């Protein structure tokens, strides 16, 4: 099994032409990127607004929790039945992709939303007060203090979402779209298990590589004062100093979801 999987992975036939591994990786990334972009467009502003104003928290959080509970496969079938008739003729091939994109975006919204609002909410009130004291307007506080401080958690949420989206984008192949899921579905149909195993391996590696890439970007996008790159006393060190378990029950330091490499802080996905 391992040998034949390796054989499939290294067979040059699978590395060129339409439907080849590189092509399907690109398509897979393309689907994932669109879904994550759309999800971010909705979830980041919403999360920042909730975190900044403190309003709509109950509504937003519960909606996100409910969205998390929606089974992707069911939603996918529902979307296909509903949307297919809406695409016809030349815009046709979108019909195969759009339902999957919606499902992936729905999947990505909760962790991104949670990251954004938990990040802003968790900003040290002293920092916020200081900014206000310096005469900043609400927008300036958000832009120049809250968002930079929230970056680690925003990233953390986004990375969780990315991992889930990349792993789940394989479902697109169930409903006739491309992407790495094709190897899984096509492999199953002709009982070509090395192809299935190889395809899954590519998905896992892709998720890993993308996560490492995002980790690197995070390193440079997040203010050095927060990442501990400058001061060796990390955030964790600080939270260790806080006595009492209320802190550990607190929202912002609660780990969540999957996280491959080592972001210092993680997001609480499901605050109560």
């Amino acid at each position: 099994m391992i040998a034949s999987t390796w054989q499939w992975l290294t067979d040059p036939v699978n590395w060129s032409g339409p439907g080849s591994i590189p092509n399907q990786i690109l398509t897979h990334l393309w689907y994932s990127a669109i879904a994550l972009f759309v999800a971010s467009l909705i979830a980041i502003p919403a999360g920042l607004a909730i975190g900044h104003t403190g309003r709509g928290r109950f509504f937003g959080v519960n909606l996100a929790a409910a969205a998390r509970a929606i089974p992707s496969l069911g939603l996918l079938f529902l979307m296909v039945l509903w949307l297919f008739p809406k695409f016809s003729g030349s815009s046709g091939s979108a019909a195969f992709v759009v339902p999957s994109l919606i499902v992936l975006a729905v999947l990505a919204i909760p962790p991104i939303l949670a990251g954004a609002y938990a990040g802003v909410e968790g900003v040290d009130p002293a920092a916020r007060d200081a900014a206000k004291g310096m005469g900043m307007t609400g927008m300036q506080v958000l832009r120049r203090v809250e968002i930079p401080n929230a970056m680690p958690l925003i990233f953390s949420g986004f990375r969780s979402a990315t991992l889930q989206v990349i792993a789940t984008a394989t479902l697109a192949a169930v409903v006739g779209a491309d992407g790495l899921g094709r190897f899984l579905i096509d492999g199953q149909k002709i009982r070509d298990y090395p192809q299935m195993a190889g395809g899954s391996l590519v998905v896992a590696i892709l998720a890993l590589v993308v996560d490492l890439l995002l980790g690197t970007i995070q390193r440079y996008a997040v203010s050095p004062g927060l990442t501990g790159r400058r001061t060796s006393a990390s955030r964790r060190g600080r939270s260790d100093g806080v006595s009492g378990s209320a802190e550990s029950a607190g929202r912002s330091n609660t780990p969540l979801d999957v996280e491959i490499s080592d972001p210092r802080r993680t997001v609480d996905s499901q605050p109560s």
Partner: protein
Amino acid sequence: MKLKRISVTVAVVAALLGTAACGGSGGGDPLATKSSSSGGGGDSSAITVGSADFPESALLAEIYAGALEAKGVKVNKKLNIGAREAYIPALQDGSIDLIPEYTGVLRDYFKKDMPGKDSEAVYTELKGVLPGTLTVLDKSAAEDKDALVMKKSKADELGVKSIEDLKGKSQDLVVGGPPEWKTRITGLVGFKQIYGLEFKQFRPLDAGGPLTLQALKNGQIDAGDIFTTDPNIQTADLVALEDPKNMFAAQNVVPLITKSKSNDTIAGALNAVSAKLDTETLTKLLKQVVVDKKDADVVAKDFLSQAGLS
């Protein structure tokens, strides 16, 4: 103190899960198959009927189950197992004992590229390629084969009645079918070798399922794989192209059963069902499930009582 609390909690959770698992049916194994009225799970004399995950297969399985129960056989049902790639291994490992099948595809599953095309030849070849533990009973006259289907308007526009007529036109057409069509003789390979057709694009969808149907109706594909008993061919104004060179082999409905589970009562009951089934009847029954959204077991029951098999 804490330890005690933890153990209490664990007990609570276990109890909750236990209730969830064991509530309802008397059986201890919560994951056992749903047994039908006369069945009592775990009985070695009981027979487990499976089906593939499409409506016609589930309907046929319900018919088989009903007919067997009428003869006093204990039946468990395990319906809507995925594709053949899942349920044949399930038959071989004893998870299920009986499943409705189709002669042509079943033969191709065990051995590719056999020459037989008509019902008798395919049935004979099928018996020859089955593994020793499995057997098929009598085939029925009911047939449900793959067909290349187009929208009636599109077929008329191109003046196409058979697959052969697509010659010289296929390079502008998008064809949809199950993913395995890409490499099979009953797919793209056959269209090329047998009919000399090359299509503009192949879109991997499903085997005569909702994707192919929707894509066909909405024009994302020009021609697609739909099964001949599909009531949507009538209701959605589609037309099945003729297959003059018999690329698609015969597909008679046939019970596939584990040899050791079969006996005279069981074989008799199932053969009686096969004798009563023809394509027209099957199409009508399927329409009740797919179009009228009736439950397969209800439709099966009606059929059995009308056919005097209940």
